[in-house]
């Protein structure tokens, strides 16, 4: 994902889309700490998913970026696979929160 990082704490609902998609959370250094998706059960798509993350500040997250994507499940898994390929491990916030079967890439 190449979208610019945005500040998580100051994000307001009207800035966020109601569509489905994927998102990344990062700490202050830009290190990705969580990868998630806003799926079909999310009441307000990325908006409610990211508002929830803003309240939780998962794994020390201070920044976020997202992609609107109807194929959010496969994109979510791809982002996790790419992160493991680049860093050798899941993002800190996904260690106990990821699909049972994640493939390898590279």
């Amino acid at each position, binding site marked *: 994902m190449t979208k610019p990082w945005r500040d998580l704490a100051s994000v307001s609902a009207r800035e966020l889309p109601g569509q489905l998609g994927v998102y990344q959370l990062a700490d202050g250094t830009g290190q990705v700490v969580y990868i998630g998706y806003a*799926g*079909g059960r999310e009441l307000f798509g990325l908006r409610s998913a990211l508002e929830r993350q803003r309240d939780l500040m998962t794994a020390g997250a201070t920044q976020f970026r997202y992609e609107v994507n109807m194929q959010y*499940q*496969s994109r979510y898994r791809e982002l996790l696979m790419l992160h493991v390929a680049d860093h050798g491990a899941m993002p800190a916030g996904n260690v106990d929160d990821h699909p049972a079967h994640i*493939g390898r890439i*590279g």
Partner: protein
Amino acid sequence: MDLELSEEQRLIVDTVRQFVRNEVVPLEADLDPDASELERADHERLVAQVREMGFYGLDIPPAYGGPDIDLVTRTLMAIEMAQHRAGLYTPCYGVFGGAGLAQLFEANEDQKQRYLYPTLRGEKSGFFGLTEPSGGSDPARAIQTTAVKDGDDWVLNGSKIFISGGDTSDYGIVFARSDASQGRNGITCFIIDAGMPGFHVRRVVHTLRSTHYATELQFDNLRVPAGNVLGEPHKGFAIANDRLSRQRIPYAAGCIGVAVKAQEMAIAYANQRETFGDKLATRQAIQWMIVDNEIDIRTSRWVTLAAADKARQNQPFRTEAAMAKLVASEAGGRVVDRAMQIHGGYGMTKDLPLERWYREIRIRRIGEGPSEVQRLIMARDLLGGSFH
């Protein structure tokens, strides 16, 4: 072929139907609409139930520990197992177990020890690597991945695309051109380990299926021991071809299952929803859609069961399997489409499974050989006189 189900078949079908409706469907209320995995505890609990019913490992031959259930009955079961949201590509989320890649039953004993038996125990999984960027419908000519003998090894170079499970499997069955001067007689089938140097998963290929994505694989000087040749060198095409014909029957059954469920939903909605002061079910436009659905479902069902019956009797079934795949995949798409039309706006939402089936069943007209290739297969058999 006897058109009536036996008492035993009725019992089995009813058991699977109740299992799907009482155990699988309720779990989907809490899952993401595009999910293809259950929570681990739920998966293990349902596997235990399936084992208790005696249905685990349905497609494993009895000689290898599978339940001794004939192909017609297994086809009837497959129709039932697909009747839930994830059912087209993940029937019952895999809790009935799988037989792995059918070609491994033809492997030598050493290969069975290394790949087949661990697969049957659920310790390993494999992918099927046939299609290449140069094409998939005519594999005998399209395969450009090369296999060159070097001492006791073969060295593979090339790529494969639209490979399901290429990123998660422990091994794969891969077809490569070992003799460039021959067409279909120059293809060799190899079993490759995903950990072999030179094996790369290049990318995820995103498709209409959200969870069951495909992958693109690349082989760079991938060195495969001669002991990993499946069958004989240069005779791999027959292995691929046999698999493609066999796979078309359960592929058709899944389409029928989804169509049956979509029709059930359409009828229920037509009998409940009112427009202009009366039920949708009273409108001729809706009635005709329901009737056309039923014609599509019954036609698909009997063509598919006829193919399964021929295969069960070890008679040639290539034409019947092609016909089943063609009819069921196209009819299933029409049924889901009409069911969405009857549901109106709700049919488009992720509140109902119809939109997922609509996306996924479109792939069925392409996967395992597109409709046009099925017609080609049947035309060859009909005009060549080998169909009776």
